[in-house]
């Protein structure tokens, strides 16, 4: 499957704004699932937010990130502003690098995503360690690695509504 990037010749339909919000809400639901303290679970909100900030930097950005971060803070019962701060920084980085990342194929895209997700976790770690919390061990970062591996499948799923049928027309160049 040829993933659409700037260098591929595939053209997408425009994204529908409600679909961005729906996918972010689904990610929030996945994050709020009461699955206990399992460190390998990816942070779905960070992943989907990062995806939309890379794909559609005009439609979703730091404001969206801030609101989602507050929702996560209330849902997790963590320090107010912890997720908000980390997600805002993630959205800024994703929006800044968006025009660079989209030139690459899916594998190299995920190589760009990994440091951003780890950085998000690092910000949260620093905030909590400054607030006298317990260091959760290095398995804490496993979630980011799993999320990076999920980058390719998740970008395929989230772009599904934008694909158009590949009907070849000999008289049309693209």
């Amino acid at each position, binding site marked *: 499957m040829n993933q659409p990037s700037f260098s591929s010749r595939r053209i997408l339909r425009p994204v529908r704004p409600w679909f961005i919000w729906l996918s972010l809400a689904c990610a929030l639901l996945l994050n*709020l699932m009461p699955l206990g303290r399992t460190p390998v679970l990816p942070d779905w909100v960070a992943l989907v937010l990062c995806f939309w900030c890379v794909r559609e930097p005009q439609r979703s950005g*730091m404001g969206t990130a801030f609101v989602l971060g*507050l929702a996560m803070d209330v849902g997790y*019962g963590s320090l107010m502003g912890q997720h908000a701060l980390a997600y805002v920084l993630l959205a800024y980085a994703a929006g800044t690098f968006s025009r660079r990342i989209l030139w690459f194929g899916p594998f190299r895209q995920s190589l760009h995503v990994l440091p951003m997700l780890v950085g998000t976790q690092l910000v949260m*770690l620093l905030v909590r360690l400054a607030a*006298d919390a317990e260091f959760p061990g290095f398995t804490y970062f496993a979630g980011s690695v799993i999320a990076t591996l999920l980058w390719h499948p998740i970008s395929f799923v989230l772009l599904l509504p934008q694909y158009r049928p590949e009907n070849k027309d000999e008289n049309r160049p693209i």
Partner: protein
Amino acid sequence: MASPVAGHSPPPFFRRGPAPLVRLVLLVSAALTLLVVDYRLHYLELVRQALSVVATPLQIAAGMPVKGVRSAGEYFADLARLQAENAQLRREQVALGTVRLRQEQLDMENTRLRSLLDMRERVQVNAQVAEVIYAVRDPFSRRVVVDKGMTQGIEPGSPVVDDIGVIGQVTRVYPLNAEVTLISDKDQALPVQIARTGVRAVMFGAGSGTLELRYLAVDVDLREGDRIVTSGLDGVFAPGLPVARVKSVDRDGSGGFVRILCVPVAGVEAHSTVLIMTPGKPVEPEAATPARKTGGK
């Protein structure tokens, strides 16, 4: 931004709002303000309560698939296992029945003796049974959520025990559920005493499910396997509740204190049915000596 020429502003083709860096600085400072206000000043509990009312339906929706899978698993559980469990529970009930009879007799005797000795009555403790729904996913703290809340009259600060010993303390109360900070959390402190010698100390969480007794001198009389119980000095926890068992005593503490690691006796990290007790009121010192408040937050 282009300046308007002769009262006409350019048409808003590419309206983008403030520059990304400006937006970043604004939102980051907002987040930092929230962090400081929440951590240092604790002003945001009301905001959190209000937002949790909105978030609760979302959490219930998120919990539904998990609950469904779990109840399906229970439905298909082995019949024989359930029967064995039932038989064991029956046996336990009979055993507990005899204990209860003796307990009533002892209670009466105790009241009589106490009145003879002119001592104060022990406070009656009320308790509610609650079910642990899930562990909070925040990896930096050890908390669980139980299915009783403000509507059932749960108060913040209530001690939480299971059938063996102390589990933790209610730290946040939402309308329908409450958050319990486990004793293995790093910030949770508990006034305890060593059952064998009566030495009093303060117990803290030490990470990875263990507990630590702090501020005891190197020559303290303590062995591996000693039982630790609550001292009740804070007035919140009833005295004599089992807390932990000493696992290791490291006496070459360079700081002048002995390093004592303990394992909790109750199933602190195994989540099941718990008992939420009404907190006792902290005891006021009778003389004019202002005692420092110990214990839970």
